[in-house]
């Protein structure tokens, strides 16, 4: 019975697709990155979609491994005007770029009233360009603070609300523990996209931004410089280890998971690994929002994740949109959250009793996700990011003062933006 209902429900969502069978089998190609997890629920979901659409075959094709290569793959294929795919999994920072390039189908006219309401607002913001919606949010991510609950409790401390308090707590705990192998605060400062995410979070924590609404870069350069100087200070003073400047998510996650650090900034995926049966910090880890800087209004984690979009050159746009709707539906997201430990973009799922039973951290995550901020939503985000990466890195390794790095980045961006007009 449940199966029949599902079929009817999917058919209703995809509109005419079910009622007007096309002659011959139709193949939809879905490009996605392999989802790691105990059991990949995606193939099963695709078969379910096929069962609801008897004349449709969905071919899931995996994307290259790294985000850089995936972007390159899409750009070459979409710019070459011969995309062999209908539905695309997109890193949310690409959505405005691809929309601007005219590669994505505008979903706005197909959306029912209130259809976007169940999603976290920041995910919808990231899918919107020029007032139109070009993708549906699929997988959600947010930067958050992991802390060693056992250590904090031992010293009678609460998770810090400001970075200054975090530094004091690190000093206090390390003095008490007298363990030279115990690091304070781990985060990501290797020269890559993750560095930009960490710096953006420090900007927000200090009440400023990288890109203003009128497209000015570094609207308050002094505040940005202050935040960068603070981050450099974390490394220079030893609160964060020197190798932070080579750390990505995994390097820092492993060190914290081995019990060698008090605080860690990372994405929600790390929680499942910390709570795994053979983990050395099992049951000793808490999560909290990222702190703010003393002068800043509030801390916020950067959002990340994946959206699903439809190629504008798809020959079966109705079916492709149907597949996107199906995969982003509450049912499919629930299956993904259970099987692959991914976090849903639909808010209601965070209080779903069945899900919470297998992932008890979900309700706490909900508030963090809600407070998350997207990185600048602009078609030239990658230009922005690739330009500031070496500058931010130079500040954090201590070879350039923050003010000069900001000035240099501004100069380059002005040049590139000039050529765009």
């Amino acid at each position, binding site marked *: 019975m449940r199966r029949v209902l599902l079929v009817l429900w999917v058919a209703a969502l995809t509109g005419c697709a079910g009622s007007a069978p096309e002659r011959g089998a139709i193949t939809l190609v879905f490009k996605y990155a392999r989802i790691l997890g105990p059991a990949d629920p995606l193939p099963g979901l695709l078969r379910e979609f096929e069962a609801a659409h008897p004349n449709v075959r969905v071919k899931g094709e995996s994307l290259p491994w790294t985000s*850089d290569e995936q*972007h*390159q793959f899409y*750009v070459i294929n979409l*710019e070459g005007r011969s995309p062999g795919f209908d539905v695309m999994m997109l890193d949310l920072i690409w959505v405005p*770029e*691809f929309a*601007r*390039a005219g590669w994505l189908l505008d979903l706005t006219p197909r959306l029912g009233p209130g259809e976007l309401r169940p999603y976290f607002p920041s995910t919808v913001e990231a899918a919107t360009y020029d007032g139109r919606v070009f993708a549906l949010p699929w997988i959600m991510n947010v930067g958050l603070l992991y802390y060693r609950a056992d250590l904090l409790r031992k010293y009678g401390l609460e998770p810090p609300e400001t970075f200054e308090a975090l530094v004091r707590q690190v000093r206090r705990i390390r003095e008490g523990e007298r363990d030279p192998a115990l690091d304070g605060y781990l985060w990501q*400062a*290797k*020269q*890559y996209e993750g560095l930009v995410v960490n710096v953006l979070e420090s900007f927000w924590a200090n009440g400023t931004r990288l890109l203003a609404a009128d497209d000015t870069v570094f609207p308050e350069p002094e505040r940005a410089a202050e935040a960068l100087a603070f981050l450099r200070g974390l490394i220079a003073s030893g609160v964060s*280890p*020197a*190798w*932070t*400047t*080579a*750390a990505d998510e995994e*390097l820092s996650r492993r*060190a914290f998971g081995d019990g*060698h650090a008090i605080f860690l900034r990372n994405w929600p995926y790390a929680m499942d690994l910390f709570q795994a049966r053979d983990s050395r910090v099992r049951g000793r880890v808490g999560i909290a929002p990222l702190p703010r800087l003393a002068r800043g209004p509030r801390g916020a984690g950067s959002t990340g994740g994946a959206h699903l979009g439809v190629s504008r050159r798809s020959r079966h746009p109705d079916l492709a949109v149907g597949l996107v709707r199906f995969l982003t539906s509450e049912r499919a997201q629930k299956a993904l959250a259970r099987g692959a430990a991914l976090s849903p973009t639909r808010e209601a799922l965070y209080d779903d009793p069945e899900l919470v039973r297998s992932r008890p951290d979900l309700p706490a995550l909900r508030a963090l996700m809600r407070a998350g901020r997207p990185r600048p939503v602009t*078609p*030239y985000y*990658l*230009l922005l*990011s*690739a*330009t500031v*990466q*070496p500058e931010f*890195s*130079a500040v*954090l*390794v201590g*070879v*350039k003062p923050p003010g000069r790095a900001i000035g*240099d980045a501004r100069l*380059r961006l002005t*040049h*590139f933006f000039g*050529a*765009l007009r």
Partner: protein
Amino acid sequence: MTGRERADRRQALRLLAPTLLALGALTVYPGFWVVWLSLQHRVPIFHVARFAGLDNYVFLASDPRFWNAARTTVVFTALSVALELALGVTVALALHRQRRGRRLGLSLLLLAWAMPSVVTAKLYEWLYHPAAGLVSVLLGGHALNWLGDPYLALPAVILADVWRTMPFVAILCYARLVTIPAEVYEAAQVDGAGRLATLGRITLPLLGRIVMLALLLRMLDALRAFDIMFVLTGGGPAGTTETLTVYAYRSLFQMLQLGFGSAVSVVVFALVMGVAWAYLRLLRARAVVA
């Protein structure tokens, strides 16, 4: 020219045609296309495509990131190729003197060379791991920030590259050593040449040509080095390991600045051509002297 000669010439052209066509379609045409792109402001996603003249090159001339990448490329090439040649020749000599286990030695060398550079890079990422890395353990637990220190990152990348490509030089040299007839050494022994004299006057001069060839091949490769730093450091920290090819890649495929990125690529191309040309001239001059 007789009719016969003319017919021969036509026949020769016909035979060459497939090669010329293939080269033209796969190398010359895209080459010119990149040069043409480099003279434009071209950002497809913004629908910008207009002639820019030498704008991109003028910007490059005053672009610190470009000069930094150029310097990194030159330092990387000079140091890694020099180390590879020195170590490669040494290893070949050692292998040649070996009575047993040559085959095993050769297989191990080939293994390092056959490994995709991305895999090598991942391997070294672990070796350089700040806490658990073998390199730190070998240094007596003294953890150096290999990949996150602006002064150590480039040497670390060079070391990884030397490990991977030294076998190429070693195997080339070994192949040459095997072909040196034993009589030459016997004659030297009869003349009373010691080990050092034999090495300096016979072995190394006879290796000369193959070493020159290895030098050319390795230099052309090193000037275009990309994957090892791309995976190990992503060009960081502070851009200290960003080569021209990495910069070109970022400009082309991440910033999507097709015109500007092409200009960087053209510079790499000119650099490689310049080296090849200078090298060929050098060889020719030598051949005349000899």
